[in-house]
């Protein structure tokens, strides 16, 4: 049943339209920059920028959490009236945030593959981009940081009594 809610949350996220695609693009850029800086750090570079990017991802997760909680206020209040537990509600947020991160990572991988293909075609050399290790670690960091957004969204939602939320809407 949790799996069913998770799958439905992915649909809901995609159907939310502009907000979803905007955040996918921002996450894709941040994931790229984080992977690039992490790769540089793994090769003895400066860690400062890496922390800046991770901080940006955390800030973005917070903003996204607040946005989702505002956008889904009536939805969540209704579902709570209909008998969804707070744990069920949490899966709605987890689904959306995970999907945004995964689609962003997929877009980055697509760009990397095409970029390498094009450059290699013209120069006969494989261009230097961040390593797959740096990319995977960055992806894991970004996924981990999303739980901050999930927690914020979830906490904001459950503070308000469902009928109160519906009346204010």
């Amino acid at each position, binding site marked *: *049943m*949790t799996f*069913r*809610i998770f799958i*439905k949350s992915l*649909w*809901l996220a995609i*159907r*939310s339209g502009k907000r979803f695609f905007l955040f996918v693009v921002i996450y894709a850029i941040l994931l790229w920059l984080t992977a690039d800086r992490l790769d540089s750090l793994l090769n003895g570079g400066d860690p400062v920028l890496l922390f800046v990017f991770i901080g940006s991802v955390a800030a973005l997760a917070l903003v996204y959490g607040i946005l989702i909680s505002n956008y889904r206020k*009536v*939805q969540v*209040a*209704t*579902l*709570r*009236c*209909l*008998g*969804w*537990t*707070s744990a*069920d509600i949490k899966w709605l947020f987890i689904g959306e945030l995970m999907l945004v991160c995964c689609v962003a990572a997929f877009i980055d991988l697509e760009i990397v593959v095409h970029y390498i293909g094009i450059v290699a075609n013209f120069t006969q050399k494989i261009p230097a981009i961040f390593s797959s290790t740096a990319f995977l670690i960055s992806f894991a960091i970004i996924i981990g940081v999303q739980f901050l957004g999930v927690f914020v969204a979830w906490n904001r939602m459950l503070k308000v*009594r*469902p*009928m109160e939320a*519906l*009346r204010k*809407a």
Partner: protein
Amino acid sequence: MSEEYVLIAEDTTKEYRRGSEIIIAIKNIDLKIKKGEFFVIIGPSGSGKSTLLNILSGLDTPTTGRIILDGLDTGMIDETMFPKIRRERVGFVFQNFNLIQELSAIDNVEAPLWPTALSSKIIEERALTLLRMVDLIERKDHKPKEMSGGEQQRVAIARALINNPKVVFADEPTGNLDSHTGEEIVKLLRKLNKEQGTTMIVVTHDENLIKFADHVVRIKDGKISELAKGGGGKTPQ
């Protein structure tokens, strides 16, 4: 005999604190609602009828007194158990329909059962049966935005019934509809009440709904001012 009552409110009072002031929303309410009744709670805006509905349905807790919902004393139930009880015993119909805009009619009807262990196939079958019952089967894949207010409220009624509830609480179900559509919605609620035996508790300020009710309670300034028999739904038949 408590078995014949699906809902009992005993000496129920609800107070709110607003700054240093204490607001008494409802005071010393005693109510007994029989199984299968079409019960209307009527009163002007601010009379406390919605507070009463929230308390009767377990969405809010009384300051004093007790509520017995389908044999369960809600004051004795752990807070974490309430969602399960709502899911198994209660349905809701709202004034603003509150359908999820991104979902189709059938998905909206199914939504209350998604967190349950029932298979997706069974949930879908139930949703289709209910959509057929509210005469919206041909619009099952339509989104709320593509439907009229009356159709959206019919979807909301189907959603309220998907868990085979003992009681359906309707908070101003005709409030956002024109009078003709509003009357059709109440007729539908009454029909389902008779056919399925589901107890319907309707909160409204619309005097026209009295003719559909088995019993009517009038709320004024947080107190019951009158408890009377309604029209029993004879007029619309």
